[in-house]
């Protein structure tokens, strides 16, 4: 591989100023844009959550009126999912997929630019809806009718924003699939791809399959609102529960869209810092694929209290419990990867280890919720809130944070401040548990979710959760500082700062040249990771 040549070509062609970012078709630039956008949304949506936690600090209405409170819970959910978590993973895909498969760029660079720039437009539409008469959408991120039909113009703005975000996701997914299937370096068969690439390939198929369903169902809401259709109105022959079926047919695969790339990141980090190959690569790939396929068969477990017939409840309970098997395989494989490794505990490794433990707790609470009779007690309570934050914060967001620390040296050419990274990790991990663990108890005791005020018996754990949330929120500012500090300078990273890393990006300089792998790299070994 002619590294010297790739390192020094094209540097002079990088333009400067805002036009560079508006017109860029470079996968690294677009990856950077996605990641900054995602971080911004993470901080905004997190601030909304802190307002929620401020109101819930004590019983009684102190700061917020119920109408605004409901807007906060709705927008926190939508912005975190569509603004923070999903774009972050697409950012990783943009940076890493071409580098890991030895491709010069994404398959459709111009489409890539458009996929990204749809997002700020969508986010502006959604955020500006706070300022229209009536305020933002307040029917929950799940947008259930008929409540959603009652809202004002903000509800339409939210639907249109979701259309834009969905379009962005579909285009991004098509780009990723095409890149992975066509632009791999010679000799990198599918079963030799880095596991991160595998998880994204499967995720991209999920996106292509379900985002159109979401687009359809929100369009049906829109026509119910304005054009006299009655898809979800019993008085006109429709059914409000049909919305839930359609929404969750999108919504459950969506959950895996937000966790499979996280599995990929963790499966990349753990072998690096255990200095040992990923255990059971093949079964990892099959496990991810099984999870993806099963995700289409479990949607109604979000609807056990709607009055499904017994047969329906039993089918969806069994199919949901089945997901525990491939998920278990992944966790066992991770532990076996660590077994008798030479483990070290840099910040990315800490985040990956915390993800494995805490995501497993989220998996267990998921199993508890899968069991219909227990779900009847816990549905729509804080237990569910605890469950999906263990899966989405500890599972997805902590993997993203770990992934950022892992690849920052590659992206910037500088080592991040390890001490700050460690402090950020411990603050995040502890505050996360202080915030969300008590919510299991709140749910069991009987506190419903999405309420601005509650009975005094729930007061103690709510206060604890609020304190945890404030620390958790503040800690993320330390993350922002650490990232900026790393971009500005720091110890030179060298080509490969992690001795256990094996994938192709580490053969390039740090930061990699603006145009990398203009000629395909030659694979030197036969291992799945491409490079031993």
């Amino acid at each position, binding site marked *: 591989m002619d590294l010297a040549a790739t390192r020094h070509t094209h540097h002079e062609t990088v333009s400067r100023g805002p036009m560079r970012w508006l017109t860029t078709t470079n996968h690294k630039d677009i990856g950077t844009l996605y990641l900054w956008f995602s971080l911004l949304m993470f901080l905004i949506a997190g601030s909304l959550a802190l307002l929620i936690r401020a109101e819930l600090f004590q019983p009684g209405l102190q700061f917020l009126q119920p109408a605004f409170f409901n807007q906060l819970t709705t927008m926190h959910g939508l912005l975190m999912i569509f603004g923070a978590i999903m774009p972050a993973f697409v950012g990783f895909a943009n940076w890493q997929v071409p580098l890991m498969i030895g491709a010069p760029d994404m398959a459709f660079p111009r489409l890539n630019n458009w996929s990204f720039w749809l997002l700020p437009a969508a986010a502006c539409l959604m955020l500006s809806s706070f300022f229209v008469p009536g305020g933002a959408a307040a029917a929950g991120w799940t947008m259930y009718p008929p409540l959603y039909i009652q809202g004002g113009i903000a509800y339409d703005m939210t639907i249109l924003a979701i259309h834009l975000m969905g379009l962005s996701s579909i285009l991004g997914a098509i780009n990723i699939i095409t890149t992975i299937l066509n632009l791999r370096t010679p000799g990198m068969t599918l079963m030799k791809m880095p596991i991160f690439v595998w998880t994204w390939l499967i995720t991209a198929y999920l996106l292509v399959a379900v985002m159109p369903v979401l687009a359809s169902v929100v369009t049906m809401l829109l026509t119910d609102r304005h054009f006299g259709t009655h898809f979800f109105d019993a008085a006109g022959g429709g059914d409000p529960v049909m919305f839930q079926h359609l929404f969750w047919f999108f919504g459950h695969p969506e959950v895996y869209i937000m966790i499979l790339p996280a599995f990929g990141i963790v499966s990349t980090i753990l072998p690096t810092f255990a200095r040992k190959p990923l255990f059971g690569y093949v079964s990892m790939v099959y496990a991810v694929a099984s999870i993806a396929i099963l995700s289409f068969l479990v949607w109604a477990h979000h609807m056990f209290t709607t009055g499904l017939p017994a047969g329906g409840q039993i089918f969806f309970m069994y199919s949901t419990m089945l997901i525990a098997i491939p998920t278990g395989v992944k966790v066992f494989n991770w532990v076996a990867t660590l077994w008798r490794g030479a483990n070290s505990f840099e910040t990315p490794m800490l985040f990956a280890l915390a993800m494995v433990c805490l995501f497993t707790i989220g998996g267990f609470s998921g199993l*508890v919720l899968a069991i219909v009779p227990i779900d009847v007690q816990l549905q729509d309570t804080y237990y569910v809130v605890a469950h999906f934050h263990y899966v989405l914060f500890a599972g997805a967001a902590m993997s993203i944070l770990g992934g950022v620390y892992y690849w920052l040296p590659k992206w910037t050419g500088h080592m991040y401040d390890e001490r700050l990274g460690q402090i950020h990790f411990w603050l995040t991990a502890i505050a996360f548990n202080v915030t969300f663990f008590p919510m299991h108890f709140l749910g069991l005791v009987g506190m419903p979710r999405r309420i601005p005020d509650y009975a005094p018996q729930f007061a103690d754990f709510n206060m604890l959760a609020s304190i945890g949330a404030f620390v958790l929120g503040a800690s993320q500012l330390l993350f922002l500082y650490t990232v900026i500090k790393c971009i500005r300078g720091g110890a030179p990273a060298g080509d490969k700062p992690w001795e256990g890393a094996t994938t192709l990006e580490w053969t390039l300089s740090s930061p990699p040249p603006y145009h990398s792998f203009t000629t395909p790299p030659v694979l030197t070994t036969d291992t799945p990771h491409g490079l031993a």
Partner: protein
Amino acid sequence: MSRGMPFVAVAIVLAPGGALAELGFNLPPPATGIAREIYDLHTLVLWICVGIFAVVFLPMFYTLWRHRKAKGHVAASFRDNTRLEVLWTIVPALILVGMAWPATNLILAMKNVGDSDLTIKVTGRQWQWEYEYLDDGLRLVSTLATPRREIDGGNPRSAHYLLEVDRPLVVPTNRKVRLVVTATDVIHSWWIPAFGIKQDAIPGFIKEAWFRVEAPGTYRGQCVELCGIGHAFMPIVVEALPPEKFAAWKNEQMTATKNATAAAQTAANATLSLTELTTRGEQVYNANCAACHQPTGLGIPGAFPALDGSAIVTGPVAAHLDRIFNGKPGTAMTAFGKLKLLSDLDIAAVVTFERNSWHNHVTAPDNLVQPAEVAALPR
């Protein structure tokens, strides 16, 4: 596997901390057989999860400690082990079957709504519950009893803050009570944790659930499906009475309803003064209208229209009456008259109150509506 064993284990863990037990870590004490079975099933599943967690993560922490780079450990290089991988696919599958079996039986029991002793229709509405004893035609509306000023003052004082209602649902103990659950506007969900039932109330559809309470007492829950700004403020209270007391209660209610109907008929013919109407109207307004239209009459811009200066409120009486009597379909505005939520007297009172409050000063005679005018509306 005995279901009692994990239960004992929980008791041992939780027993020493009496204070901890009061803080509430677990499902509330079951009041029905179904709720008890759910409680035990949850305990079983929880302890299986705790066990698996220990089996998986103790080795992980051991290897992280024992095989760390800082101690100079050199990594092994194995990358798979088929026997192990088959084992950890099959064993979890067996454990899952062990959980699914009791769960399936319990689902079938929960779904068996046959052979009920009485049927109550539950209707959710923004933001109150209506109960109708279908066998007797007895009907009651149950609304939050916590005073608004306690909530807005941010200073909860009542013992059952937000979990108290003006008129609880009353049921007999040791009788199979079948609920048919529906809603008139948006989806609500009816839940009493101690009974182990939660059923979404879906507008336009009727869903069933059942319970059999074992001991007399007061059981509390609340709406658990987001239903708008009053979602936190539509509690559910069930009072379980021994069957003979329940029968007495029911007779008393039937008589009271009959008397109330007679009184309403008298009231419908009465002519009231402006002060009488506005005084009563203010109470009706605060209980039924203020959540959306606000005590100030200013509403919430964009979501709930202002009544202060509203064209309908200050315009012709007929349109104003129609809006309150028939509601506005597709919005949170309920048909208070058509659905018999307010008496003719109350509707007359609240209309009069609105036409004479805030900046609304409708000139006589249009400022005053008598119950007879409401009674004359087509039903």
